[in-house]
């Protein structure tokens, strides 16, 4: 009888601990734990318009649960800056939301200080696609994985999200 109770108690304790840690536990490695706080992501493109629009149109057509489009006065800014303090940086995104699960509103820019950014539309498109991946909750990756989120990618060749990226944002939703 006592043995049965002990098992029951142990089981319940195990259940409680599992529940506790599953809610506290960190997100999967490919996500940064954030996503837009609305289904529709309205953006304002202020510089390098062609590449930003190409990048978000591609994402929009591949994302099953979110829409992304331009609207004047929208709170999400896609632009360019000449950032001489970050010569190794192609692009940067800052989430303008103190809530730990939201990626919007955001401010993101392509760094025109780099000559490869100024000279190549492919590089700009690659950077724009990468930053939008962060909007949809993808995290930075390194190494040989074929992903627009890979910081080591060839930005001249890989300019849009890959099948892996598209599958992942559709899991995140």
């Amino acid at each position: 009888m006592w043995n049965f109770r002990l098992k029951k108690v142990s089981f319940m304790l195990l259940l409680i601990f599992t529940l506790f840690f599953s809610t506290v536990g960190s997100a999967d490695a490919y996500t940064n734990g954030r996503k837009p706080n609305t289904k529709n992501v309205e953006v304002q493109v202020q510089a390098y318009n062609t590449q930003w629009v190409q990048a978000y149109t591609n994402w929009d057509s591949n994302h099953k649960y979110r829409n992304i489009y331009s609207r004047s006065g929208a709170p999400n800014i896609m632009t360019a800056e000449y950032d001489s303090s970050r010569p190794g940086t192609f692009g940067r995104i800052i989430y303008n939301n103190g809530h730990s699960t939201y990626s919007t509103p955001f401010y993101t820019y392509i760094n025109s200080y780099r000559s490869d950014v100024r000279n190549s539309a492919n590089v700009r498109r690659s950077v724009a696609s990468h930053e939008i991946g962060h909007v949809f909750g993808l995290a930075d990756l390194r190494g040989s994985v074929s992903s627009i989120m890979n910081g080591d990618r060839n930005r001249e060749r890989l300019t849009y999200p890959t099948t892996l990226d598209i599958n992942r944002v559709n899991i995140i939703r």
Partner: protein
Amino acid sequence: MKKCTVIIGTLLMGLIFLQACGSGDETVSQMVDSSDEQRVERLEDVINDSEVIVKGHFGKYIDKDNMVRNYANPEIPSENTYTEGHIYEFHIEEVYKGEVDSTINVMIPYASEIKVYDENAKYVGNVMNESTEYKKPDPEESNILFLNQTGIKENLYGPGSIPYNIVIDKDESIEFVSKRIEGQLEDNVIVEGDSEQAYIIHEHREDVPADVREEFVVIPDLLKGKTLSDVEELLKK
């Protein structure tokens, strides 16, 4: 059985309490600052990325300015983004690459401003996060700097790559200035798993309570096994 119920109940309450604490102070904004960065692999990458490479020492502090400029015209400061750069004189003893005067002005990244928003995305104020490559220049030490023309003003140079500043100690030992170099990672740099991605949480608890998670790549130890003369030999090639 009653005893068990009491134990489980107490544990449950304790865990709920702990979880409430774990979720943190509700008023601390959780901000993120993330860069799409090129990872330098070798010292040669730093050399190739820089127009000007010089040895010398820092002189007097001149001024501060925004290192982020209008994307199409660097003479105009950015209206939306602010990274404070400190301008110092730099007295040159040796030029390895480029053509420069004997004294140049160098703008070094000091800190980046982040606009802080609360949980409802309402603006609450600004915080400054020190650059991972910042160290107050010491005129007593020698440096090798890897630079580019900023385009902001004439004779004003900035980092040609990250990292960009080798400090030469009196015993001729050398080290790049950075909090995020393998083997000399600052304590607050957290590496994600076995990847090369890492981050720092800049904790602000005064006027504007915020945790700013700055994400970046870890830089390999580019000077591993190299002496000052090895580096100078490479630079003179």
